[in-house]
């Protein structure tokens, strides 16, 4: 089934279609959320909340505004960032790991048999520092191009092309 059909059925409250979308994106959202909150239980909780939220506000999604993945990625990042701003969370996690997502990959020793994950681990260890930073900010943290250029102190145009090159390297490694 085409993604467009799947999303359309999901918007008509088709649970089966929703389940397929969940299977496609839940791991990804889990990764993004975990990278922000750095707590396994909280990350799972937020991830489930994100999908329940997506189900209830499915009518607000429009393909014209962006990809379905991008839509749910936004919900996930916002939910995770909201959580880190909550009082309870700040008190409990004062020493949030400052590492980028690569830190998680480099330090994780249970990557299962997922060849992709093992490949990605190799990729990120070889990846240039500037690539790690730009991918972290644009995809995991949801920075705008402008915010990223200010944080990394480089021109907006450079962010754009550098990101393009970094994603190309990733795609080459993943063969997509």
């Amino acid at each position, binding site marked *: 089934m085409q993604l467009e059909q799947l999303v359309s059925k999901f918007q008509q409250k088709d649970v089966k279609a929703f*389940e397929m979308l969940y299977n496609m994106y839940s791991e*990804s959202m889990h990764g993004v959320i975990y990278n922000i909150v750095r707590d396994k239980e909280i990350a799972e909780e937020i991830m489930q909340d994100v999908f329940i939220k997506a189900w209830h506000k499915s009518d607000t999604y429009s393909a014209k505004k962006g990809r379905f993945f991008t839509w749910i990625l936004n919900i996930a990042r916002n939910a995770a960032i909201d959580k880190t701003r909550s009082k309870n969370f700040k008190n409990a996690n004062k020493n949030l790991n400052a590492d980028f997502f690569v830190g998680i990959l480099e330090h994780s020793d249970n990557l299962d048999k*997922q060849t992709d994950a093992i490949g990605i681990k190799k990729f990120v260890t070889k990846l240039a520092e500037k690539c790690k930073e730009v991918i972290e900010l644009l995809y995991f943290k949801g920075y705008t191009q402008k915010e990223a250029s200010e944080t990394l102190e480089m021109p907006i145009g450079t962010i754009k092309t550098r990101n393009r090159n970094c994603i190309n390297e990733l795609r080459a490694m*993943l063969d997509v």
Partner: protein
Amino acid sequence: MDIKAYIASGILELYVAGTLSEKESQEVFALTQQYPEILEEVKSIEASIVKLTASVAPKDAKHSFNTIKTQITSAENDTKVITMDKPKTNWFTYVGWAASLILAAGLLWMVNENNILKQQIEVVETDKEFLETQIENANNSLAEAEKLVDILRDRNIVEVPLDGQGDFANAYAKVYWDQNSNSIYLDAKDLPEAPEGKVYQVWSLTLNPLTPTSLGTIDDFNTDTNKIFTITNANASEAFGITLEPAGGSETPTMEQLYTLGVVASTP
């Protein structure tokens, strides 16, 4: 339009990241609909990002779609249940109120019944006390009557009739003298009531010489019902007499007021 240059610009990567403005995104979307090459590029970029982000997720996660499914379906069921339950709840409420009103009324009725029963018990108690008194009185009367019968049938008792004297010829009394117990039983049924301030006084007499000995006054003569009086008498009496004397009695009998007199028939 130079599609390759457009792709190489890096705008599609930003499109997937969600950092473009809404207007820019709409433009990209329009181009993906127009050029399959651009759409394919977007899909590839997206796939690589999905895999990269997924690789960061903790691998020992326990989550499953079922958790979410239960929540979203139960949420829908809940709303249905609420709408269906509403009349039910009202019905239960009404029945509940009705039941409590009936219960309250029942309780009041029972309290009232209880009070009535208590009052009835009080009345019955009073009746019972009254009856008990009557039984006691009857028992006392019976005991006195039995005693009288016993006295009359006792062979050791000497009967002494006291006949009316002088002006008091209609008066009559009888003494039953139990010499074993040194007591007399005076039956004064046929004496008139003692006037105010006067009492009857009983005398024991010996005839040779005539010597009266007071056996005492009958102070309760007018109130006694059977007019039988028990009097101690340890004298060797030969006759008994009754005179009317001023209250408190006299040393010697007032002979003008001698009502009755009788001589003991046979001296033992």
